């Protein structure tokens, strides 16, 4: 293995120009893929934040005593999909109502807290925020005695989920095209590299090298090219990301640092490096199959 690895590094040094061009092409292709992933990850995060607004409110026509509150809260949070249930008393409801109608205080003159209903505001776990899941939770809530009304902005939830589905579909479609393009570019670049060195393959076969012996350094070279190319792409992207985060605030109407924008998570970066290595390996393997005939 050490022999093949040494051979692979010597080959890279001996074919420096071709290797730099190959790694550069891989870097460019992987940069575009990583940039897409960065946008996608941040959009997903934004969509998660927006989906926090998917909330169910259940109303009661009377004030609940503390033991009853806690009993109902336990019953509600026991429903699959519910992450949190917060009790809103009549007094708190009035405070919120007043704050919403700030500046129009006269409208609330004479309004007492006991005309308002009490409620539980229910938040859902992320995977239960789709229309079907929300409706399932609503059905179970309706079965709880004492609840007079359940509200969850049915139309808004439906439209919001439709929007999320569309965004995910669009993202997956673009991602799939991008992956195909990257595979095509990387495998063809590696093919050209190997094509330019087919004499080497011929000579090695001529002196009795086994297929494994011929292929091993090329496959390792492919992996190195893939990892170095992807690594360079990620470094470039990280540099641009950092530059944007610390400098773009002067030119755009919001501060990127407090906007919640994040870089690609480490595990995704590792997966991209792995994908780069795999692309390099498969690109080399398929090209070698074409050129090694005996």
């Amino acid at each position: 293995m050490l022999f093949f690895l040494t051979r692979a590094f010597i080959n890279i040094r001996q074919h420096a120009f071709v290797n730099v061009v190959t790694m550069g092409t891989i870097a460019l292709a992987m940069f575009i893929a990583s940039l897409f992933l960065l946008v996608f990850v941040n959009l997903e995060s934004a969509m998660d934040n927006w989906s926090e607004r998917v909330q169910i409110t259940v109303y009661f026509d009377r004030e609940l005593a503390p033991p009853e509150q806690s009993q109902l809260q336990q019953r509600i949070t026991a429903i699959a999909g519910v992450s949190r249930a917060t009790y809103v008393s009549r007094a708190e409801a009035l405070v919120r109502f007043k704050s919403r109608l700030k500046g129009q205080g006269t409208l609330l003159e004479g309004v007492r807290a006991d005309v308002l209903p009490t409620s539980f505001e229910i938040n859902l776990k992320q995977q239960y925020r789709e229309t079907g899941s929300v409706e399932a939770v609503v059905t179970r809530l309706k079965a709880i005695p004492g609840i007079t009304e359940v509200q969850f902005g049915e139309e808004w939830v439906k439209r919001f989920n439709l929007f999320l589905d569309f965004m995910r579909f669009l993202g997956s479609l673009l991602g799939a095209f991008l992956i195909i393009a990257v595979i095509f570019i990387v495998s063809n670049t590696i093919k050209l590299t190997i094509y330019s060195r087919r004499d080497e393959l011929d000579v090695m076969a001529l002196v009795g090298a086994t297929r494994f012996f011929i292929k091993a350094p090329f496959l390792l070279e492919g992996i190195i090219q893939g990892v170095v190319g992807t690594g360079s792409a990620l470094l470039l992207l990280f540099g641009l990301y950092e530059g944007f985060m610390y400098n773009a605030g002067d030119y755009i109407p919001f501060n990127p640092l407090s906007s919640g924008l994040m870089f690609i998570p480490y595990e995704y970066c590792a997966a991209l490096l792995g994908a780069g290595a795999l692309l390099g390996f498969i690109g080399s393997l398929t090209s070698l199959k074409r050129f090694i005939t005996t």
Partner: protein
Amino acid sequence: MIELQNVTLAYQAEAAALYNINLTIDKGEFVFITGPSGAGKSSLLRLLYGALEPTTGQVLVDGHNVSHLKPSQVPLLRRSIGVVFQDFKLLQNRTVFENVAITLEVLGWGRADIGKKTMAILKKVGIEAKYGQFPQLLSGGEQQRVALARALVNDPKILLADEPTGNLDEANKDLILSVFNEANIRGTTVVVATHDKRLIEQSHKRLVTLNKGEFVEQAHIE
């Protein structure tokens, strides 16, 4: 050592490159194969090192039946054969030393042994001083000597040469022929395809003549 029995080689939809060839070459023999361009000399050599399979007939080389060789067995055949070409087939980005050492690397030799053996064969062909140079800096004769060193460094049982002197001047031709003779004296079976009459006449060896893929005659040049 080498035996061709009723060998016909036909490329797709074309006339046969070789037609019904029968030829036996004994261990330690030195044979020239000659004939005009397109006679089938190179095709015959390619059959011997397993680059081609015969369309019909049997090709036996050093105990291997090339006609029924699996791809995984071809390297084993080639390790007992050294091959030299008119265009040298040297790797331009590797030094003289590396071009020769590749044969021993493939065989799994240790680094120290590779160094000793490679320098010894380079000395034998008179090019040891240029071991660190790249092929493009060498003359045609020097490049052919490197190719010859690569073919002989592992002491092959058979040496095949396809127009080895085609690009060389008379002095280099003599030098190459003397290396062939030395290898032959040490027991290597040598088969040289050439239409270089002077080389053939000078060597006093067995001569096989082909024309349009067919066996014409064989003789022993005195």
